[in-house]
């Protein structure tokens, strides 16, 4: 096994673990994006350009973007709830 493969693999393991143990979702999203890039690199090294391209576009861009948007949406819901004792929150409870 080539040195570069070992290095990147270990890096994959570490970043993956880091994404999981990061408890703050916003930091986690950044970690996830980074993780996506590392995985993409790993795939590239494994001679899988198709997958690497797909991983970098989806795993490193679209997926974190989805999380960002979801977080933004949730924050907005929270703001709305706190700004005016909104009936909507009462509905759910």
């Amino acid at each position, binding site marked *: *096994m080539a040195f570069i493969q070992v290095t990147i693999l270990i890096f994959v393991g570490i970043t993956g673990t880091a994404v999981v143990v990061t408890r703050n979702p916003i930091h986690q999203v950044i970690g996830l994006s980074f993780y996506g890039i590392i995985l993409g690199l790993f795939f590239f090294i494994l001679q899988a350009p*198709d997958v690497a391209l797909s991983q970098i576009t989806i795993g490193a861009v679209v997926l974190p973007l989805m999380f960002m948007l979801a*977080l933004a949406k949730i924050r907005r819901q929270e703001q709305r709830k706190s700004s005016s004792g909104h009936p909507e929150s009462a509905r759910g409870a």
Partner: protein
Amino acid sequence: MSILPYAVAGWLFIIGLYGIVTSRNFIHLVMCLAVLQSSTYVLLLSVGYRVGGGPPVFATAPVGTPAVDPLVHALVLTDIVVEATVVALLLSLAIRIHKNTGNLEPDKIVELRG
């Protein structure tokens, strides 16, 4: 050393499960699920790799050049799209749950019991 890629795949699966078990936030939980899922990519691509093989593209290289397994690449492509869709669906569920209960903590939402 040669089982390192497999070990990493197993580790990613377990650490993803660990994240889900200990999660206090649905968004965090979904991201752990994404990590768990990436274990399948690593395993699939690793089992199809061949030392000295080129990419399975024969645009410039002539047919017969040693190449890695193209099949697992196709499987992983499918898998990646599946991941994105599952994440999208779970995130919309999480947004909904937050909207209805004002809460994102899995353990605090105990409507269904017993």
